């Protein structure tokens, strides 16, 4: 694994066991997260973005389970780690910020206790006073005044709570921050401040951030690189300018055209044909072929490989591949 890659996901598959059968919410996905970058992960609701985000910490419980693949984080395969050692990684090396800051804090615990508990969980030898001063320092850095730390979550606004969530994720020497739709429930002004904060943190702490969102504008604003998911598969990955400026995958192109623009006239907004496929019975061949404006005969039968189109710009589309040549082992 090259030194500049922090987290390398290899052929990850996550399945949900349902009454109707196993649903692959993440199907054979490979993705590299580079050190110090903000990687945006975009896609429609239900395409598997959040599932992928949780899988990076092996947080799945209940019906979901990782059924295959490797999770190379900082030189070791997390899949080979016993599950009861995962709590040492969670919070300490990988932090997570959840979608809804209103419900992601314990309602009956003070903010300060949230922070000191995180520190104590991973560093039991830290004294109460030291943990306290570290928590205060960190909170102040994130714009939470010292005296507000003794408050309960319900006394804080959404933006404040989201900052608390980040400070929780950063309480230790976190290398990777997974932000799962962190701005969905915030208004645009708070959202803008939050995104600024993310960028500052990235520069100041050398933090690597995986920003999961369905808001393409947010990704375009802050991300260095972007990954596009469609129906549990990776559709396109590349530098944010390449992917948004010169999209290769027809899905990405459609997605970009669907973003409303102030200069558009009435009825000009593009609507993609059809609906996302059911993951229980995904379409044969390329999963996007029923909605693809450039569909070819071969798309019905052959699954495209996920491979570079130009340099670092990867896409899984048969338009750029010689049909029949790249028969990947995906079917096997």
């Amino acid at each position, binding site marked *: 694994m090259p030194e500049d890659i922090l987290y390398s996901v290899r052929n990850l598959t996550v399945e949900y066991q349902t009454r109707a059968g196993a649903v692959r919410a993440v199907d054979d996905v490979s993705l590299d997260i580079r050190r110090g970058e903000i990687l945006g992960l975009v896609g429609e609701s239900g395409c598997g973005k959040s599932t992928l985000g949780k899988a990076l910490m092996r*947080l799945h419980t209940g019906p979901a389970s990782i059924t295959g693949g490797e999770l190379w984080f900082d030189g070791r395969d997390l899949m080979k780690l016993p599950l009861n050692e995962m709590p*040492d990684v969670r919070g300490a090396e990988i932090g997570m910020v959840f979608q809804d800051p209103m419900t*992601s804090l*314990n309602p009956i615990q003070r903010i300060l206790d949230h922070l000191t508990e995180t520190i104590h969980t*991973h560093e039991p030898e830290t004294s109460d006073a030291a943990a306290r001063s570290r928590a205060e320092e960190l909170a102040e850095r994130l714009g939470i005044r010292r005296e507000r730390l003794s408050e309960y979550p319900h006394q804080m606004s959404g933006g404040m709570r989201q900052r608390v969530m980040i400070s929780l994720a950063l309480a230790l020497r976190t290398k990777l921050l997974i932000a799962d739709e962190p701005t969905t429930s915030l208004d645009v002004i708070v959202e803008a401040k939050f995104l600024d904060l993310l960028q500052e943190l990235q520069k100041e702490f050398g933090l690597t951030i995986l920003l999961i969102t369905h808001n393409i504008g947010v990704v375009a604003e802050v991300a260095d690189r972007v990954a596009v998911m469609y129906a549990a598969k990776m559709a396109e990955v590349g530098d944010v300018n390449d992917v948004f400026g010169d999209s290769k995958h027809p899905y990405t192109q459609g997605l970009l055209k669907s973003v409303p623009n102030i200069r558009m006239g009435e009825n000009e907004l593009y609507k993609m044909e059809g609906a996302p496929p059911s993951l229980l019975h995904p379409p044969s061949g390329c999963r996007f072929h029923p909605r693809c404006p450039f569909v070819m005969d071969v798309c019905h039968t052959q699954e495209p490989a996920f491979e570079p189109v130009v340099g670092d710009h990867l896409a899984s589309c048969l338009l750029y591949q010689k049909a029949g040549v790249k028969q990947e082992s995906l079917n096997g």
Partner: protein
Amino acid sequence: MTEIKQHPPETPAEDTSWEAEIQRVGFIRRILMARRWYGADWWFVSISAVMVVGFIVVALFPGLFAPYSPDALVGPRFLAPGQHPEIPILIVPQDSSITSLKDMAAPEGQIQPSIAVVQGVPTAGALNEQAQAIDNQIKNEPEGLRLRPRIERFTSLEETLQAVVDGKAQAAVVQSTEFERVSAQFPTLREGTSITGQTATAGGFILGTNDIGQDVLSRLLWGTRVAIIIGFSASIVALVLGVPLGLLAGFIGGSFDRLLSLVMDSLYAFPGLILAIAITAVLGPSILNVIVAISVLYIPTYYRIVRGQTLSVKEEIYVEAAQSIGARSLEILRLYIFPNVIPSVAIIFSVNVADAILTGAGLSFLGLGLPPTIADWGIDLARGQRFIQTAWWMITFPGLAIMLIVLAFSMMGEGLTEIFNPKLRER
């Protein structure tokens, strides 16, 4: 907020502002203002609290309040509340110098006096007790006097008195009213003082006496102790077992949860009293067994509530967030789930104590719960039931006591619910 500042909290607040107002006042204020904010009357809470505290104090120190021991046969049988008891008095010959029991003491070694009593009347017991008390008191005095009268029993009042006339006994002890009835026939006898002086039965029996001459009030007060012990112990045992099981079942889930829920639901499906009867019938009567039977009955209550709450809290994002910062299962259970579940447990507890007291009383009413020697309301009820037409007070007062204690605990539970969970308030 500005509008609230113009009105002090004493004036009726807007319905919308009570939640803001509640943040700014102390606990005592919250209770006092309960009616406006939660729809609970403050007096409702305070009365129940006073009652509960009162019951607990009585249960802790029944001896301070009860005039007699609960088991002692202290008075005549079936004495109605307020009715004055007959006083055993000393009857002596006219020419005797004796006026009180104490005068009959004789020096150590000499023949002790004989005193006549009527068979089967509680006077003999009272005499014995009193003579012993006087003896204990005088034996250390320098005169060396002792009082150990020989008690002669006769079958009728007339025979008893005749024995004194004939000189077979120096004195007789009979009930005052009875002597008045026959005093004309025995002109040579006169009344001495009451043998008890103004001590034991001077206060009378406020709530009357029962079928064997025990004081109903004393039994009532001592019975509080049993009721409180059973109510609290059974609820605490049920809580201590039910809450962790509910937490684990909800948290672990899977087949463990299914199996445990099956067991708990089976327990729950049983009619409560019948299950308790079955358990005590097997274990035999004792306080401990009643506690065991009742706690088994209430474990499912705690289990179901806690399990349900755990299931919903477990799915909260803050629990997932806790996992994402590396919290382990035990920590999540202890710091996140348990504290969020415990308020509802506190409320069930209060109501449960009332329920447990009722079930305990029910068991001993049926003769299954407690050994009959214990002063218990259920036992008194069962006893009073047989004499309901002749001695209404025997069944009424224990019944009232059960009603009041259950009411007190239920009212307090309701009041606390409304104070701690203002969101439950009906709007």
